[in-house]
């Protein structure tokens, strides 16, 4: 067996390469998105792209520090890190500053720090640590209750900051719970709830109820018609109808106006090209006008004209679509899916539950951002303001995603040592 470098020898270079590819492609696209003729150097520190370079360099440094840290540090101090983050989330509610309607920033000089970004990896650490503990019994109440608490606390605090998008991220941990043994029916139920809710808003509750009724009738022919099956089916049917019935009420009473209009625009119920629909419509024009091979680097007109809002942060994918076309967007999507698959693969080879679940958590968080962010730019999900990992402009998010991933890479280097 050849000599291996004790620190870098066991590093999963595939993950590192995918990470670097995404970060660099993101940087180039930020440059194109906010390109300023007067400051044409990508290294110009007065511009977003120059600043992003600083964030990238500091991220690489943070990554290196993590790789040099003892892996046991993260499991040992998981709860402490989590606790500190929760305190920061409380603190930001008290003394934070409000940017774009969310009170989620600590203002430090001219830079803003967003604790919500860091809460993601901290929560992931805490959850993995809890499940890797000694007294885990899936049937135990404690085992069911405490994870909900771990996930619920940061989600609630972030919701209080009026940052709905970042709070919704915590729903992605359902994949970790699924891997932990949560019944697949929950995933299915979650999907069905989404489908029923959206279709109710789209075509009206009575159509959906009718459809569900027909579906139940059809099912009756395929299942064994014994008493318990029929009772279960009827119970399920009533539950579904009740849910559908409550959707309109919840929509009208629990959602804020801007949330309502974003959903209505998505569903095509409302054509509001100047208001809520503006972002999505401009985003689709930008991406759609890219064609197969795109308009070419710096040749995008939609983003240059500032028609696309938030073009360097939440809508960075537009620039990819416009300037690099279908080829570019496919490349980015393939890179993300490869990264996610690689994370799952690496997670599965962990010998510790901690490493395994942490890996699933990393994949879940990245997947949620990827799916929601790109889905929103191409008009498949409502506009929810969360960044595209490694791509979007911003120090807090890049640092946080880097920490999230590099802790996992570090944990992975210990897979042999734990034998």
């Amino acid at each position, binding site marked *: 067996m050849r000599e291996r470098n004790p620190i870098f020898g066991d590093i999963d270079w595939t993950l590192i390469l995918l990470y670097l590819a995404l970060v660099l492609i993101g940087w180039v696209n930020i440059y194109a998105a906010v390109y300023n*003729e007067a400051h044409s150097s990508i290294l110009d520190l007065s511009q977003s792209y120059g600043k992003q370079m600083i964030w990238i360099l500091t991220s690489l440094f943070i990554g290196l520090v993590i790789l040099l840290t003892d892996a046991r540090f993260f499991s040992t101090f998981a709860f402490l890190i989590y606790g500190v983050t929760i305190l920061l989330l409380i603190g930001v509610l008290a003394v934070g500053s409000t940017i774009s309607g969310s009170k989620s920033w600590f203002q430090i000089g001219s830079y803003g720090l967003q604790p919500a970004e860091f809460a993601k990896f901290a929560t992931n650490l805490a959850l993995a640590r809890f499940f890797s503990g000694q007294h885990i019994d899936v049937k135990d109440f404690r085992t069911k209750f405490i994870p909900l608490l771990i996930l619920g606390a940061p989600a609630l605090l972030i919701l209080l900051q009026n940052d709905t998008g970042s709070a919704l991220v915590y729903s992605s941990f359902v994949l970790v719970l699924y891997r932990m043994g949560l019944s697949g029916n929950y995933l299915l139920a979650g999907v069905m709830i989404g489908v029923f809710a959206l279709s109710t808003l789209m075509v009206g509750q009575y159509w959906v109820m009718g459809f569900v009724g027909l579906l139940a009738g059809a099912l009756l022919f395929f299942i064994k018609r014994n008493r318990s099956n029929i009772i279960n089916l009827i119970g399920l049917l009533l539950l579904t109808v009740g849910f559908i019935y409550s959707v309109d009420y919840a929509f009208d009473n629990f959602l804020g106006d801007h949330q309502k209009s974003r959903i209505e625009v998505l569903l095509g119920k409302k054509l509001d090209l100047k208001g809520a629909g503006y972002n999505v419509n401009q985003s689709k024009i930008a991406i*759609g006008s890219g064609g197969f091979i795109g308009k070419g680097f710096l040749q995008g007109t939609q983003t240059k*004209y500032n028609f696309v809002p938030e073009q360097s942060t939440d809508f960075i994918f537009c620039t990819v679509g416009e300037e690099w076309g279908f080829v570019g967007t496919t490349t980015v999507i*393939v890179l993300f899916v490869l990264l996610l698959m690689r994370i799952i693969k690496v997670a599965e080879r962990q010998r510790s539950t901690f490493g395994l679940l942490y890996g699933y958590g990393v994949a879940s968080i990245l997947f949620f951002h*990827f799916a929601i962010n790109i*889905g929103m730019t191409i008009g498949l999900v409502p506009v929810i303001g969360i960044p595209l990992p490694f791509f979007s402009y911003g120090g807090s998010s890049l640092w946080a995603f880097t920490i999230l991933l590099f802790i996992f890479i570090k944990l992975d280097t210990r897979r042999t040592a734990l034998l």
Partner: protein
Amino acid sequence: MAKKSLSSRKESVIAIFMVVGVVFMMRLFYLQVIDDSYEHSAKSNVLRYVTQYPARGLVYDRNGKLMVYNEAVYDLMVIPNQVKRMDTLEFCRLLEISPEGFRERFRKARTYSRFKPSLFEKQISKEAYGFIEEKLYRYPGFYVQPRTLRKYPKPIAAHLLGYVGEVNQRIIDNNPYYKSGDYIGISGIEKSYENELRGIKGIKVRMVDVHNREVGSYQDGALDTTAIMGNDLYLTIDADLQEYGEQLMQGKMGSVVAIEPSTGEVLAFLSSPGYDPNLLVGRVRGRNFRALSEDPVKPLLNRAMMGQYPPGSTFKMVNDLVGLQEGVLKPSTRYSCQGAGSSPIRCTHSHQSPLDVYVAIQQSCNPFHWQVFRSILTSSGHGSFRENYISWRKHIMSMGFGHKLGTDIGSELSGNIPSAESFDAIYGKGRWNAMTVRSLSIGQGEILTTPLQIANSAAVISNRGFYYVPHIVKSTGDSSIVPDRFNKVTSTINPAHFEVAIEGMRQVATMGTARWYQPEGITMCGKTGTVENPHGKDHSLFMAFAPDVNPVIAIAVVIENSGFGSTWALPIASLMIEKYINGEVKRKELEERMIKQKLY
């Protein structure tokens, strides 16, 4: 171990990731490769966002006569990024500009932005537009944008109509509605009714091919908004009367303001010398504006509201009214007059003595009015002399003097009725008395009024104690709603006292200083004023209302440095009244003499 069996779940998780990835790619394939509307715009060179500028609202007079309309012109725009190699020389010939001018304009546009449209040449004429449009396909990056400019059928009413100009950076910074290149009302009603007149801008999204030809609207115009024309304004002005007044005032410096007393509607409002409003439109505006502002007779100055003059003898009734209100003057009160030998103010007319208030107004007797003013200040009964003065000032100001009236015409000056404090500052507290401020009794000294205020005071007297804030817009848009901010203002003088002033003014016109200029078949009540002026000849003033019963017009005429009130201001006011009430003027000889006379 339970975990082992669960490890197969990684397949499902990976499947979810892949399904989402594939769905995204399918959606992107549809958006980017299949969907025609995006495909089309990807192939066409660019989308062009053309602002649709609304035409400003039209302006009519009180009888529906058109006073302001619009004319189409064309701005040549450029998007530097789209400009390809081209025959610059030919292009310069088309536009009649030099190659240096071309380079300079292009450099400016490029500095502003390579991607956004800039104005290349503004307001090219209809002829030049027709010529250029045919050849425009050879010049990618250039396009023509229609605009409208103001046009005036008659060269009248320039000061009250005001003018329109391009917004400056300060306006753009303060008001997000305005973008570079927009027009905004800068003076007159164009300014005070900007929000009504400007309309709503629209935008058209056009697809443009590589040959600079518009190939149609984008997504069937789903993103387009049409421009909505501004609201029309109906003025209170009588355009015929206004035009007649401007004719009469030719060659004279001063102003004429006529008001309908029962409503406060301004019938004529002119400042002389004026200018043709068509001069301050479009490309020629800058040059003409400079010439007008350098003209020593100040044609841009709106003397009707910004010229401030002592009111002279036209102020005497106002003073008498305060005396009547304070009880120190009775219709039967008589004072004697020593004519030119009177002290402290001599009389300029010869008449009977002693005389009452009617004759004093009719003959414009200075000593009588000094006596009235003195008794107001010494015996009004508000305590000290100073308190009496403060009370006098309050009564005067209640009749529309010494403060802005709040019209909608534009910038007005407030005039001046000096405060007790200002006299304290000059003479020291307690060291001034009626004698010190005696000139005020005959409308001289520190008092300043605008022609608008003098006309308004004629309205106050004719109304027996109140006025409606003078205004120039009757209604906007299709509605006939009169703006409600022009309220009724009531003076502090008892209406009964006005009969005395009115009778005095009637006698001015029937047996006094104005008896030679009674309009045909109309009984006019008026008062002349001859205002001493340290800078030259006296100002000639006349204020009047007519007819004496149910008056329909109150008027003030001021003619600077021309002599007696009865020589110039009176005949012009009399002709205006005849024109307005009778519709035509029979005294042609007088009319011709007035029109022809040049006084500066």
